């Protein structure tokens, strides 16, 4: 795998009036990996993607897509030649038929693979002569995916790609994404379906309230992330854990629950020094990290 970055942002910010949809985002997406972009609804995922693709102008900060500046229209246009994109809406021109839309899209890209388009047309059971306006939501999603997957771009950006698909189609999609990645395409996809991300992603970025709150590989998740649960004979001490690697601390009656990255042994030792009667150190799932990351501080 390459260490080159296909997406880089530095302090990228987008404000709509007083509301900050994206706030000082420092995002790095490595080449030839599958990166899941996790966040709750309204966390800023789509706004970030729109800024990357030049649809929305950043309020401040900088960013690059395939090495081209995102806020320079000409450079961004050059980058888009090598990017396939499936938007969150999956709305396509209603007046075109399926085959007209395929012909239309094909005309803009040199990396179009007609044999793949033909195969996907059959696999997805899309009627070529039918108008897009007459397609169901699921079929529209499949058509949007066909238009992206029929190419061999450097980067594939998908915004909630599985929305509107049935479980079988989701499974097929995930397999196709893994297949595309194995052919060298970098995949960056937003989702709030943690199971999907966990299935295929090499790396995960979690965004909340427009800010990047976590960025790790799934290998790092398994190796470094732990929940340390400390039990006390009396009320848990109101000790502020100021140690490296601590992400979240929850205090409940006689128990302290600490989410920690890479420093679990030291945290456990600190707990024992605080006279904890029980110390449990357990691995943590992506779901737990996500929920801890986006849960409001109480």
């Amino acid at each position, binding site marked *: 795998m390459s260490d080159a970055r296909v997406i880089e942002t530095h302090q990228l910010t987008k404000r709509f009036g007083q509301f900050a949809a994206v706030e000082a985002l420092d995002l790095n997406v490595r080449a030839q990996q599958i990166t899941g972009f996790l966040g709750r609804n309204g966390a800023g995922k789509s706004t970030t993607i*729109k800024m990357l*693709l*030049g*649809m*929305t*102008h950043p309020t401040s900060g900088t960013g690059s897509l395939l090495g081209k500046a995102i806020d320079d*229209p*000409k450079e961004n*246009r*050059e980058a*888009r*030649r090598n*990017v396939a*994109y499936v*938007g*969150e*809406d999956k*709305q*396509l*021109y*209603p*007046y*075109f038929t399926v085959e007209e839309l395929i*012909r*239309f899209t094909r*005309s*803009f*890209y040199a990396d179009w693979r007609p044999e793949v388009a033909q195969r996907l047309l059959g696999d997805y059971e899309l009627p070529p002569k039918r108008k897009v306006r007459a397609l169901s939501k699921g079929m529209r999603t499949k058509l*949007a995916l066909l238009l992206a997957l029929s190419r061999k771009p450097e980067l594939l950006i998908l915004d909630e790609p599985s929305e509107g698909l049935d479980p079988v189609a989701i499974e097929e999609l995930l397999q196709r994404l893994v297949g595309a990645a194995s052919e060298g395409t970098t995949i960056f996809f937003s989702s709030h379906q943690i199971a999907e991300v966990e299935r295929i992603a090499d790396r995960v970025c979690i965004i909340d309230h427009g800010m990047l709150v976590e960025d790790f590989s799934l290998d790092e998740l398994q190796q470094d992330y732990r929940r340390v649960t400390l039990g006390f004979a009396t009320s848990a001490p109101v000790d502020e854990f100021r140690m490296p690697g601590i992400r979240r601390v929850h205090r409940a009656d006689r128990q302290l629950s600490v989410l920690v990255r890479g420093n679990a042994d030291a945290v456990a030792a600190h707990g024992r020094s605080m006279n904890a009667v029980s110390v449990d150190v357990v691995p943590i799932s992506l779901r737990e990290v996500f929920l801890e990351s986006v849960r409001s501080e109480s």
Partner: protein
Amino acid sequence: MLWYKAWRESRVRFLASAVALVVICASFVFFHHDASGGISDEPLSYPVYVWRITYKGYLRELFMILAILLGLGGLTRERDQRTAGFTLALPVSRWRLLATRTVVGLGQVVLLATLPAIVTPLLSPLIGQAYPSSQAWAFTILWATVGSLIFAMALLASVLFSGEFTAPVVAILGLAAYSFLADVRPFERYLTDIHDVMSGVDMPYFAERTGILTGPLPRATLFTVLLAAAALIAVGARITSRQDF
């Protein structure tokens, strides 16, 4: 393929407009006797009748509304229909998207302006009348030029305002406001009434008594109108380049 997209987006509007213009134009010819009595108590010569009912009358108003309809659409409308993301992800500049739509739309406006010049001289002999083609084509030039300005107003309105009806209503109100100001004393010296440019009313190149264009067309006025249209389109392009979608 952007041309094809622009055509497909406006095809229904354009074809419906063309059919409406042709049918109404043909009706004016075939119902000449009946309609003539409704326009004036005095007998009218055929050129005066055609001018009053077509180039000064209902058809001109209809043409102006159709030019507004053809100016609608674009990225703001696509944002409402949620297809803007797909369009903007294409490796195409916003300027090119707008330019394609503008060229196709202006072409349609010009084609609509030519329809009376084709239909009226062609059908008039069927009722034993004649309308000079040279007159009809001269009016086509006037209509196409002013139609371009109206189209540009609608295009700018559709860049600025989303919503199904907001942009056309704003364009119609803008047109009405301009026409009103062009007739009000402090402004009439500076503003040319585009209705009059189209019909020739009170213009030195037109004789109302005979319904015939007599002098050379007002090149300076037409050039100014085209310049204003280009300016409105340029403003639309500038705004489009800065919009968030």
